[in-house]
């Protein structure tokens, strides 16, 4: 394992498999009445959030606490780019407090990379979402969820639909899922695919209906209504018609196919309520798995050895 988790591209197939296998073991802790392991006792994990994301923060918080780490939540929203305390000074403060790991969410792409390579801070850096760059633990929890339902990811067809251009979830998933052997197809209107996507390790299409054929998993991305003001698409209604997942489209999917969404959902825009609440949807399960996967990441980055997991068995 590397010392930091900044990008899904940092992970080899073996690394990713180790994280997922470890998460499998740790998931059993969550089924016990006492959901706690002593593994990271005395270690400090800082959740450094420069942007609101209650879901991701509490997931990391639960993960760290179940491993008995001390958790500090540092909400620094708007304090960097908007001329408050600089990222550097925040980092130096955390270093002075003795953070062993810093989980960072930041609106600027590359901020976790800068933190990891600046020399400002010595601990492990975990990217919890940076701008429109990456969100590697989301990809890991998605892969974990798929693996549970589809057993192996090798040769599985995964369709990711929506605002790929602005999506850190899509970037990390393309990298991780391709590493794990899945065939990924991105589906979006041409305006919401980045220039250069043709060099990504995946296929892409503008046609949702054609792409759903033979899919093993369909991942719907959140689409912000504001995007239509910048002419990425003409209207929410047209977007839903062409790229939304409704019951009719769902019916055409193969019987075992699962439906995913990283949340928060725009019901009625990229996904209808009927689909989101159907038993094909594994969206709530993704949230549960997020804790196990983040436990595994913290555990492995902070130097846990396999034998320390003995207590889980």
């Amino acid at each position: 394992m590397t010392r930091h988790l900044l990008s899904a591209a940092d992970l080899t197939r073996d690394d990713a498999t180790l994280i997922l296998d470890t998460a499998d073991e740790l998931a059993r802790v969550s089924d016990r009445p006492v959901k706690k392991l002593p593994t990271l006792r005395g270690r400090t994990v800082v959740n450094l959030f420069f942007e609101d994301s209650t879901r991701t923060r509490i997931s990391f918080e639960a993960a760290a606490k179940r491993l008995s780490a001390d958790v500090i939540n540092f909400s620094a929203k708007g304090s960097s780019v908007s001329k408050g305390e600089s990222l550097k000074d925040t980092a130096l403060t955390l270093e002075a407090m003795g953070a062993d790991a810093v989980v960072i969410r930041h609106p600027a792409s590359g901020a976790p990379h800068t933190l990891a390579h600046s020399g400002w801070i010595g601990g492990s850096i975990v990217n919890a979402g940076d701008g429109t760059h990456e969100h590697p633990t989301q990809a890991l929890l998605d892969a974990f969820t798929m693996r549970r339902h589809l057993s192996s990811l090798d040769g599985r067809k995964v369709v990711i639909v929506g605002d790929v251009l602005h999506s850190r979830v899509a970037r990390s998933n393309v990298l991780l899922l391709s590493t794990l052997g899945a065939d990924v197809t991105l589906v979006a209107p041409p305006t919401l695919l980045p220039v250069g996507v043709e060099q990504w390790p995946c296929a892409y299409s503008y046609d949702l209906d054609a792409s759903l054929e033979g899919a093993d998993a369909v991942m719907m991305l959140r689409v912000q209504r504001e995007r239509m003001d910048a002419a990425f698409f003409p209207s929410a209604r047209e977007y839903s018609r062409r790229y939304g997942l409704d019951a009719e489209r769902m019916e055409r999917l193969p019987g075992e196919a699962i439906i995913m969404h990283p949340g928060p959902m725009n019901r009625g825009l990229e996904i209808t309520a009927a689909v989101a609440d159907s038993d094909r949807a594994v969206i709530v399960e993704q949230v549960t798995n997020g804790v196990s996967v983040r436990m595994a990441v913290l555990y492995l980055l902070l130097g846990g050895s396999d034998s320390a997991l003995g207590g889980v068995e």
Partner: protein
Amino acid sequence: MSDSAPSTSYLIKGARVLGGDAIDMLLADGVVAALGADAARSAESDVETVDAAGLIALPGLVDLHTHLREPGREDAETVDSGSAAAAVGGFTAVHAMANTDPVADTAGVVEQVWHLGRRAGLCDVHPVGAVTVGLGGSQLAELGAMAESAARVRVFSDDGKCVSDAVLMRRALEYVKAFDGVVAQHAQEPRLTEAAQMNEGSVSAVLGLRGWPAVAEESVIARDVLLAGHVGSRLHVCHVSTAGSVEILRWAKGKGIDVTAEVTPHHLFLTDENVRSYDPRFKVNPPLRTQDDVDALREGLADGTIDAVATDHAPHSLEDKDCEWAAAAMGMTGLETAVGIVAAAMVDTGLLDWAGVADRMSRRPARIGRLAGQGRPIEVGEPANVTLIDSETRYTVDPKAMASRSRNTPYAGQDLSARPVATFLRGRLTASEGVVRR
């Protein structure tokens, strides 16, 4: 411009003028007083002899595009510190861009910068006047007043911002004809580059940084060359960065349109691959492009489609670069590394010889800026603006050793082989061995 007569004469022995045969030259009374065997013969007894065996002698370099930051951001650079960096870098004249605070959009501000340059006395500082009031892009600044001021402004630019309004650009191009001025356009279509962070392409797609498409530059250049042709005006294009821009310029020159263009050393040397580090020292406007663009720019400079190398020296304080990419300022320093980078990109690759470097870094930029006493050949009777370059000793770029007040060079640790070792401004030594001489 007149300086007090220099007290020292220099006998420079064995320099290779434009990379040719070794020759002696005598610099006295501000001019090249003698060349060849005459030089030693004519030297007074108190002449200072410079052993220039193996060194290349070029006419003093002229930069069309420098940010000296004064007035307003004296923490990053001053006219004095920027002049020192210029002298160390082999320059004898620089054009100081107008995006200061206050903006150089009146006779008062350009005269202030001009006076500060005279006081520093390390190179000729020629202020660039803003095209529009406050770089606002809506109302012409008093171009005539700046032209007639003591600073005698001939180059006008809103650099940092594009004169994107087609009518305003047309009027500016026409208006400056009255005093033989030139509009230097920063070609960047603003709507296509809102919040843009780096070149749009395969690297920006992976890094999740907002793309800055080549077409945003090329479409403005295409419009401007057509406008310049239509009204019969002179146009200069700042920091050309894409292969498409080179093609448009080549076409325009072929049509006889009076357009000139510059390229920066960094666009000849670095690519958007450098941005994978998210290191803000590589954040610059226009952004670093692809290797294909670099190759086309080198070719364009070699065949003369691009007339000049200009540094776009853009000093920034440490705090404006010691941060995450999105929060960082755009720009990199360039005066002190220009010769080394141009040599690596153009001379070592066989694309230009030293005579070609002199043409692109001295003669042509001086002509574009209408600087009578700069960019002249090294001949008897010409102003003694001379730069001596060591092209053989390898060295490593050390930001801490620089004369600029700022340290935001992208070349820290880079090994280079060419470096200016002495600069003479009208016969006066302004820098030697990387140290400014006052």
